[in-house]
Each structure stands twice: as C-alpha cells, then as structure tokens.
C-alpha cells in the first residue's frame, strides 16, 4: 500500500479565448454580489487581516480574464488573490507558490485566512490514516483543526461530486476529506450567478456539492461565480468561489477584531441564505449562499 500522497495538484480548468492584455484599474465590480457594495458603503474592508493563498504564481500557465475592469493575462494564483483583494482591499495578501512545499506561514497578529483553490487527488479508496501530507498541506490541516485560521477550500469541479467522495474518474480529493472534521474549514461551491430573492441561483453544473454527509453539509457554502467582466475571457470554477469567502472572512475580521477564526467561520456558516437559491436542499447547497450583509449585522438591536 502506498502510504505517501504524491504531491499532485490539479488546477481547475477555465474557458478562455486569446485576448489583448490592458492596463489595470480598480473599481467596484459588477461580478460581485450586490451585498459587497452594500457592505462597502462605510467602514473598513479587511484591514488587520491576512489572506494567504497557496497557488500558482510562477508557472508559464496563464489565463486571460478581467476582474478589476481591465483585461489581464496572469497565473491562476494571481487571479484568485486579486479576486479576494477586490472584496477586501485593506487585507494583507500573501501567496505561497506551489513550488514551495514548506509549511504555510500565518501572520502573528489579526485574523488569518488561508485560501485553497486547488485539490489533492489520488485513487479513491484510501483512508486518511494511509496518507501522509507534505508540510504545506499538513500545516493547513493543523490550522483548521486548531482554529488558527479560517480555511476557505474550493469544493471542486467534478460535476456534482459530493465533497469527500470519488469522482467519475475514480479519483478523490483527499485534501477535502482531511478537512471535513476540522473546526474552521469551509467548503465553497459555485452558483451560476449571485442569487437574490427575486432572481434565485442554481448550482453551477461543474461544481461539487455537499452530499449526504451531515458534517460536510454544515461546513458547505455556495457563492455566485459569474466569470468576471470580460465576455470573451470568463474565469469559472470553484477556484473563484473560495476567494469570495476568503474576502468575506477578512471583512468580518476587520469589523470584529476580537473574534477568532472559529467564530468568523461559524458566523459565515450561520448567516448563509437559502431564500436566494432555487429548490434549496442541504445535499446540494449545504448551508446555502454566503451573505456578507447578514454576517455583518447584529442578532438584535434596540
């Protein structure tokens, strides 16, 4: 029995068309949920928080897209970190490239969020105790267990596969499996759009789902992934759902400065909405669509 996990990682695929890179500008973006603009109306936007991305920022594999109003051509990790930065512009952004298998470092102060827009696949059928992790994944799992950081994990793009289960190719994302019973991991699936009560969303056809595992259902959120601003260069995938949750966590952390990662995680999960989703069910949507507006609001006021 092979006890060692090969450090395979699968980058999620995107639909892309060759285009011309343009200059960069920053404005509030139409692809964001309307709740982000409401939450931005006053106040802080993620200061004193740190979001760490484990992703590709060095390879020659690049993609065209547009998140900030101008078309860019850059690696997967540049896209995911940019997406979170646009939601929480005052958060500190760190990126650990895939070439670095060392432990993920956290900031010593303020809320830490770790964004994982990747998977660790191996043949379906192993149990977790048959596997060992590199320092990088091992550190993240440790943070999720101890509550040292909010862990925003892309659920995966295996067309309706339940988190923790094997896909149609006989492969399982064991990183998902290892994070299921942790304190602060959130699995993030993709909706086909940002839902509202008058225009409800559905699960994106490529997105993984929560499944029948009740523990996963309690830790599963969905967000709208609309691909960005460029009609010819769309960036789809749960890779771009996880950074939204990472950004939301940072905004929450800058408002509730005494809250720890577990409290931030629970707040995002507990305030998710089901009324913005067509035919909501926990097997598909877990807790529902993340709502930054509700996560920022009080329980009661007088």
């Amino acid at each position, binding site marked *: 029995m092979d006890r060692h996990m090969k450090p395979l990682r699968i980058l999620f695929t995107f639909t892309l068309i060759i285009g011309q890179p343009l200059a960069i500008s920053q404005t509030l973006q139409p692809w964001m949920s309307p709740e982000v603009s409401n*939450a*931005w*109306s*006053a*106040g*802080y*936007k993620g200061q004193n928080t740190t979001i760490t991305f484990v992703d590709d920022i060095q390879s020659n594999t690049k993609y065209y897209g547009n998140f900030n109003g101008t078309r860019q051509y850059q690696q997967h990790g540049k896209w995911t970190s940019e997406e979170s930065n646009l939601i929480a512009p005052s958060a500190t952004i760190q990126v650990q490239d895939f070439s670095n298998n060392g432990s993920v470092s956290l900031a010593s102060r303020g809320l830490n969020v770790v964004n994982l827009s990747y998977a660790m696949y191996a043949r379906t059928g192993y149990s977790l105790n048959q596997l060992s992790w590199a320092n990088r994944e091992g550190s993240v799992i440790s943070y999720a267990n101890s509550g040292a950081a909010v862990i925003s994990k892309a659920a995966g793009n295996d067309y309706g596969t339940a988190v923790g289960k094997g896909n149609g190719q006989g492969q399982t994302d064991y990183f998902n499996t290892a994070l299921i019973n942790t304190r602060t991991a959130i699995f993030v699936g993709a909706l086909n759009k940002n839902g509202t009560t008058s225009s409800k969303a559905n699960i994106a056809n490529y997105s993984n789902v929560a499944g029948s595992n009740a523990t996963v259902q309690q830790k599963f959120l969905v967000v709208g992934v609309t691909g960005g601003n460029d009609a010819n260069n769309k960036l789809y995938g749960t890779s771009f759902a996880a950074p939204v949750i990472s950004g939301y966590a940072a*905004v*929450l952390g*800058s*408002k*509730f*400065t*005494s*809250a720890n990662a577990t*409290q*931030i995680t*629970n*707040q995002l999960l*507990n*305030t998710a*909405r089901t*009324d913005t989703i067509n035919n909501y069910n926990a097997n598909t949507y877990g807790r529902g669509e993340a709502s930054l*507006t*509700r*996560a*920022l*609001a*009080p*329980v*009661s*006021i*007088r």
Partner: protein
Amino acid sequence: MKPLSPSVLVLCALLSLGQYKSICAAPLFDLWEATSLIEIKQGSELSNKMGFYRSGGFELSNGVPVGFRSWYTPTFVDTRISYMTQIHPKVGVIWGFSTGENAPKYAVDPSLKVGLVFRHEIDKTSALSLKGTSIIGGRLRESACSANYGDIGGVQQVNCRMAASTMQPSQTLQYLYNEKPFNYNTIWLQYTKNFN
C-alpha cells in the same frame, strides 16, 4: 390697536394676580403694540437632517428587517416662533423660542433666539437693514443603540444607522450627530428698494 397675542394675555393674567399688575398697564401695552410676529415655522434644518434617515434600515443576521422610521420620527416637530419689538425708530429687538423635538434615538433641545435689527432709510423708497441673531440651545444629540452581535461580537454600543456596516461598532460612535443649529449666529445685511 393691534390685538395682544395669547401668550401676552396669559402673561398679563398671571402678573395681575400679584404686585406686578401695573406692568400690564399702558407702557407694556405700548410695548406689545410695537411687537410683531415675524416667524412661525415648524421643522428645522436639524429636524430635516434626521428625517432623512427615517426611510433607512437594514436586515438583522437572521434576515428580519429593521426600519429606522420609529427611531427617527419625533412625537412633535420642532416649532419656532419669533417676534420683533421696535424699541426705537431705527432699532428693533428680535426674540423668540423653539420647542425642540424628541425621538427615540435623537433630540433637538429647545432654544431661545435673541437679536437686534437696525434699519436706516436711505430715501423714501430704499432702506438698509442690519440684523444679527443668536440661538441659545437647540443642539441636536443622537443616541446610540445597543446591538447584540452574538458569539462573534457580543453586546456593543453602536451608531444605530451603522450597526450593520463593515465598521467596528466602537468606531461608529464618532459619527453620532452632536451639533448646534447651523444658523446659531447670523448677521444679515439687506438692501430694500420699493418700486412705485
């Protein structure tokens, strides 16, 4: 002869009960002859400022809507009455008061208004007036809310209007309104020309 205002009648009635009844004799009566009502107004800039927020609101974390209307609607709208008493052919004294207003989350204090007006007739059809007034009191003070943020933040004092914003609750308190009337000290210079 100009009729006395109800407030003067009440004042004279009260004064006539004691040793001051003579004050309601001819000199005061003449003084009131020289007094004119120059302003009666319901509402003020501060009142209007808070009225702007009545249509606002937000949702609680469970989606229950919270509207601001009940917090920012007063039981009685601030009302001001002002008089001018001419004490000299060219000089008048301006005086008056406002009632203030109270709502659950703000109050406008009652106020007194005092001032002087000088009028100089340049010729038969034109005149120059200089008026100065001060308002004593009338301050707007907004109150904080007590918000329960649950496990993530506990109970905190917060600006009611910003309880669901991205701002730290303690940081929102600096945005509570606490200000004087915008016209608490004014000087007017007016030129009047009458057309024949």
